């Protein structure tokens, strides 16, 4: 049985037309391309992924999704000015970007250990040596995260509790029971608190 093809033609065979549709940002062609890239690139990233360093904040799934998302951002930027002779070249670009982003991802995981868990570094000498390993961008990110943590701590205790547990995957209904509040109150508090943090991040760090 023929596989359902939402764009109604084979992009390999009609590549020039396919490329022109992509340049015009046609949703059908882009959805086909992104679906194909996700199905091919994500399992490949999983295979290449080694064990995440201990203390990584994200799970493997979250890490791979972040790598894929960042790869996608760069792919979209490079696609605008790139030239491609066939579909294989488009795929190849995404794989090359994916490999680079995977390495960047590992660096970020190690860096996150220094940025997010800065409080754990007690010895000043160690702190200086550790911070030497951070780039200027990393140090700016570190400052930003410290400011964000200060904002979180300024929230009402109950709101902090809700957000911290929610971020770790707990369901709102379970959090509500535990805190002795209604589910509706819990979701309202969660929304309002997250909104405050979003406003802070998007206003402070710019778009």
């Amino acid at each position, binding site marked *: 049985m023929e596989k359902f093809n939402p764009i109604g033609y084979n992009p390999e065979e009609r590549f020039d037309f396919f490329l022109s549709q992509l340049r015009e940002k046609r949703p059908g062609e882009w959805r086909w391309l992104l679906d194909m890239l996700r199905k091919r690139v994500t399992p490949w990233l999983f295979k290449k992924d080694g064990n995440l360093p201990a203390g990584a904040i994200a799970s493997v799934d979250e890490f791979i999704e972040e790598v894929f998302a960042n790869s996608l951002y760069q792919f979209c930027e490079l696609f605008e000015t790139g030239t491609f002779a066939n579909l294989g070249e488009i795929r190849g670009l995404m794989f090359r970007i994916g490999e680079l982003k995977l390495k960047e991802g590992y660096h970020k995981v190690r860096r996150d250990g220094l940025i997010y868990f800065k409080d754990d570094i007690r010895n000043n000498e160690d702190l200086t040596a550790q911070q030497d390993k951070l780039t200027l961008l990393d140090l700016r990110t570190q400052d930003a995260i410290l400011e964000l943590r200060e904002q979180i701590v300024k929230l009402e205790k109950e709101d902090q509790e809700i957000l911290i547990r929610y971020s770790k995957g707990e369901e709102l209904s379970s959090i509500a029971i535990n805190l002795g509040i209604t589910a509706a109150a819990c979701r309202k508090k969660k929304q309002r608190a997250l909104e405050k*943090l979003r406003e802070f*991040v998007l206003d402070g760090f710019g778009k």
Partner: protein
Amino acid sequence: MNAKTKDIISIILKIENMQTNIIERYLRQELSNEELQDFTFQLAMDKELRNEVEANRMIFKTLKTMPPVGGGLTTGSKSNRLLWLGAIVILLVGSVFVYQQMTKQNQAPVVPLIDQKETTKQPIAFAPNESYEQLILADLHRGTEYTLKIDFPERENTLEIQHAASIQIPLKGNLQWNLPAAEFQFSIYSNKWEDYENESSVFQEEIKLKLQSENDFVIDEIFSAQLQPGIYYFLIETVEDGEPRGGGKFLVVD
């Protein structure tokens, strides 16, 4: 500010709210395959969205590194004891299952997770949702300080509304409210429970109550909404705290 401007602002806020909620669900890996495909397309097309996603990702990562404020579950309350008991039962059942899997001769190959969190009970548009069913059947209609009686749509006979570009949803009932003055809203949710948890209603509008006598109000409204065929749950909520005070359901049919 005139009524039209208010409507426009309300629509913009709802769209922003829905976008925010889908970003959260994406980061928590709660999107279905179809939703993930749509969202990936939006990420490719929209640089602003990428910035928002990464801002949210930073927030969630930062939150994850912080210890719980309350120190986790406390002992003593009945609900917590039940939770612990439930957790122990789940662990025991899980251990038996793992043991059975380990003794199987042919193991299924491990397939890397490609898609976002796959819910085995992924609801279709018309599938009733147990959480909503319980919520609307719960005795929300009568409290010590208020009584809300919904005459239409009736709870016993699920209202069927023919699908059209814009459908009309009647709401009739009576409210006796002995608490301080409050505003009420009519919120419609699809059958996805996470939409309720994320305050992502498909429709929301203020209910204009008609005073009949002291603390006694009549509800007689017709709301216009654009809804696809499926089952929908509505809630009458107090605006300030989002508390559901009454609810029901209806079907939009082809």
